[in-house]
């Protein structure tokens, strides 16, 4: 009597034992990848590489002209800067208020960068009753939610190119599955994406699953539609 299953080599395939990778090799690889990642400029998904070459052009002549223009702009920026225009007799700007927080920053110097809210003001962004904001400092940025009392909650923090500014282009608060979901569209220039934050207690927390559903929605109506049908 024939056994149909026995003729199917694939259905009888036993699972192959997989050896354990060596721990030392794994640590080396992870460390090497971390170092390489730390040296990479942050690039949002799907973005094009924009570097000095793109800025200065594709030919040597364009590069020379671009470099000349850039140098002139730097000199003008320096000459016209408020610090340069201060007369020598003008009093030096008062140092910022010092206190326990500043002391704390000094003590952490070299270990971790200072929190962005201690360095620069919030760039507010308002969408109806929603109060949000962004901080851009050097190669770092963070996005915040501001509640009714004016208290800020940092939603996400990340890295960017020094000459880029992350902005918020849209936001909406949606009641979904008994929870409030804050959807924010942010990015650099035309490279924008939606992210979803679910209200958990007094805070909003990033939801990878919902962000995955809405990241490329065209507007807040489509965000709401996608969440309602999920």
């Amino acid at each position, binding site marked *: 009597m024939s056994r149909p299953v026995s003729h199917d080599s694939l259905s009888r395939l036993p699972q192959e034992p*997989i050896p354990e990778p060596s721990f030392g*090799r794994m640590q080396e*690889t992870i460390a090497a990848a*971390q170092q390489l990642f730390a040296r990479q400029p942050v690039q949002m998904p799907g973005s094009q590489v924009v570097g000095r070459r793109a800025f200065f052009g594709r030919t040597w002549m364009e590069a020379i002209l671009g470099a000349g223009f850039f140098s002139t702009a730097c000199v003008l920026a320096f000459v016209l800067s408020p610090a340069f225009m201060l007369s020598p007799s003008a009093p030096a700007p008062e140092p910022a208020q010092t206190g326990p927080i500043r002391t704390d920053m000094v003590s952490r110097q070299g270990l971790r960068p200072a929190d962005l809210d201690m360095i620069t003001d919030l760039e507010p962004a308002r969408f109806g009753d929603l109060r949000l904001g962004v901080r851009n400092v050097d190669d770092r940025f963070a996005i915040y939610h501001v509640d009714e009392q004016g208290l800020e909650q940092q939603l996400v923090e990340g890295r960017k190119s020094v000459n880029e500014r992350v902005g918020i282009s849209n936001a909406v608060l949606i009641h979904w599955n008994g929870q409030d979901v804050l959807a924010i569209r942010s990015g650099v220039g035309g490279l924008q994406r939606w992210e979803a934050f679910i209200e958990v207690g007094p805070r909003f927390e990033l939801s990878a699953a919902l962000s995955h559903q809405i990241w490329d929605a065209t507007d807040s109506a489509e965000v709401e539609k996608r969440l309602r049908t999920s």
Partner: protein
Amino acid sequence: MLRQEAPAESQDVEGLVIRAQRGDQQAFSRLIASQYHFIFRVAFRVLGHKSDAEDVTQTVCLRLATSLSSFDHRASFTSWLYRVTMNIARDFLRSQMRRRKLVDGAAGVASEHVDAEQDAQRPVQDIWNAVRSLPEKQRDAVILVHGEELSQEEAARIMSCKKVTVAWHLHNARKALRDLL
């Protein structure tokens, strides 16, 4: 054995990916650490050698450090990582000319006449070496569907083809292995 990630784990991974794409180094470290064994396992299935699989795993991890931004969330990160790993493993095989050795080895296996009982006792490694000797598409289909226990739909997404194409590769692999085994 269930190879696919549980939903909660999958969400964790997707969250780490999003944060890493924003430049969060801690998230990237956690992502790499959490995916290392997965990458190694897939690489080993394609290559059949531990040290080779570790070489490919290293290449994939370094590639992630430089190319994570190219992941656009159109598919799940796991599907994308399958594709990246299998592509790099394939390139590794081509460059190392190991495929020829595997074919030779499999031919040796095929030349032996064995009955069903002996077949059942045949070392598992030999059987999978025979799978690795198949043409690339057939091999990938067998590894994904019967090794990783993915659905044919998921295998099709990873292989960038239609489900019916995966079924066709499996059909051909089945015929080839029936001759070999």
